[in-house]
């Protein structure tokens, strides 16, 4: 071991330091997604294929049409969105909690990166995985049905906003979680019911009025319907209202994430 006196010159611009830091977090997150692709990308594509076979081809044939379109075509946007939701959430909660559990989160905590860059970096990783898996499920869907694109911009924005919302939710879960059970608890008991009752497999117009009113309290309903509108031009809710709800959720969850980081709750206490 021999110490040499070579010094490194750190760029003087704070903005550049932050940008490099953000790119480093994103690169690490993306590397993790690709390194364990058998856990991060493949399972959702397989699950989606099974859904299409069972609900689309077998049961769907007996159902016929839903809201005026072929049932397989009807559920396709919802299944893609389900993959985006579960993967963006799981990526951030598992990655952030893993870093906390193995304590290598300290690598970032001791660095000069501000909290908001850390939040954006982890959320960016979740969005990347959500969109990547969403794209994989879209390819699977195309084996089973035709997917017209009515409003490409709506599809893109709805997918990105949804991935951001659930990445932020996963981040908050990762901050609070004290063990791996607590990382799995929210997806099992909250996320899955919200997703299944979020209008993926059915139109809420089919439900009795009290159930329709109850469904309107489910944020996933707005995401799935905005996304479906982009493909099929059909939605159970007003799309503009759906985007307003999504933006509100994204803003509130981002503020909570920042507040948790600044207070060090679950991290520095």
């Amino acid at each position, binding site marked *: *071991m*021999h*110490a*040499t*006196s*070579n*010094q*490194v*010159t*750190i*760029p003087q611009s*704070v903005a*550049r*330091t*932050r940008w*490099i*830091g953000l*790119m*480093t*977090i994103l*690169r*690490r997150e993306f*590397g*993790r997604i690709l*390194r364990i692709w058998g856990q991060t990308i493949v399972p959702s594509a397989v699950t989606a294929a099974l859904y299409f076979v069972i609900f689309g081809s077998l049961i769907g044939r007996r159902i016929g049409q839903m809201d005026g379109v072929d049932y397989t075509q009807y559920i396709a946007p919802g299944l893609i969105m389900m993959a985006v939701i579960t993967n963006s959430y799981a990526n951030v909660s598992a990655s952030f909690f893993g*870093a906390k559990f*193995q*304590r*290598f989160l*300290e*690598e*970032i*905590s*001791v*660095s*000069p*990166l*501000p909290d908001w860059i850390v939040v954006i970096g982890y959320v960016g990783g979740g969005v990347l995985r959500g969109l990547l898996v969403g794209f994989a499920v879209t390819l699977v869907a195309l084996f089973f049905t035709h997917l017209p694109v009515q409003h490409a911009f709506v599809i893109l924005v709805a997918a990105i906003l949804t991935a951001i919302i659930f990445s932020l939710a996963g981040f908050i879960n990762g901050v609070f979680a004290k063990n791996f059970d607590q990382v799995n608890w929210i997806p099992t008991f909250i996320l899955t019911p919200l997703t299944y009752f979020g209008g993926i497999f059915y139109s809420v117009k089919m439900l009795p009025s009290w159930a329709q009113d109850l469904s309107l309290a489910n944020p996933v309903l707005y995401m799935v319907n905005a996304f479906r509108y982009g493909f099929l031009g059909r939605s159970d809710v007003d799309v503009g209202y759906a985007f307003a709800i999504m933006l509100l959720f994204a803003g509130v969850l981002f503020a909570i994430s920042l507040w948790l980081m600044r*207070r*060090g709750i679950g991290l*520095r*206490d």
Partner: protein
Amino acid sequence: MQALEVRGLVKQYRNGVQALKGIDLCVAEGDFFALLGPNGAGKSTLIGICTSLVTKTAGTLEVFGHDMDRELEAAKACIGVVPQEFNLNQFETSLTIVVNQAGFYGIPRKQALARAEEVLTQLSLWDKRNQMARTLSGGMKRRLMIARALVHSPRLLILDEPTAGVDIEIRRSMWDFLRQLNEQGTTIILTTHYLEEAESLCRNIAIIDRGRIAESDRMDRLLRKLHVETFVLSLQEAVTELPRIDGYELRRIDEHTVEVDISKERDLNGLFAKLSADGLHVLSMRNKVNRLEEIFMRLVDRAASPSADSAAGSAV
């Protein structure tokens, strides 16, 4: 300039435990500073606050003049930290870990790769650059954490028991490395349980106990405060019964080795003369390396006594 200036630092955990009870501490730029204390004394809490891994309850900290409340990013950019526990991503390679750390400090990737090669080579880890952290030995992991802490060339390096669990050979080469680093201008704060390590490396020392600074002084001045030194003597003749020599307390270690405690007022010539008169010849003599340990134990024992609070902070 002070590398680190801590004033009135208090940390009270949510469970009511007060880990730090108003710490004042100054570490000058270029210093090699030892922070000692028994387990649970507050060392790691203090280091945690300095590296912003733990939130403080009260007090102020400045790193090279940057107030950690007002200029947190500037203060953090000056610090490199090697924690006590392994905190490496077990599934990343050594090179990736160091390059990523450089990225968190804003070093562009090309420059980060070059710097990573430099520090990994310095720490004799370049040939392990493509090995995942989990496959490295304990000593290698320690060195990797040092390489990671150095990648952004910090002005202040904080090492929390960096040689815990490493073999003697690696520990010695780490000491040489840290000495060189300090000679090149890096301020180093070291916590260790190996008191010999602190005595050998550090110029200044603070002993922390029960959340307070029990002693803070120059190492040589602190050691001079010792009234008694212990020497180990190798004798030519076998000793079955210890001679009684007034003013010197002898202990038999084995038939050819004795230990003797000598107070500062007494000279060694008197001892040798009396041993010689008893027909014992000294072949060699060495100073038993327990000086700092002795001070440390004395301070900690004193702090544990009922009058601990009033005694804390006074000179030995």
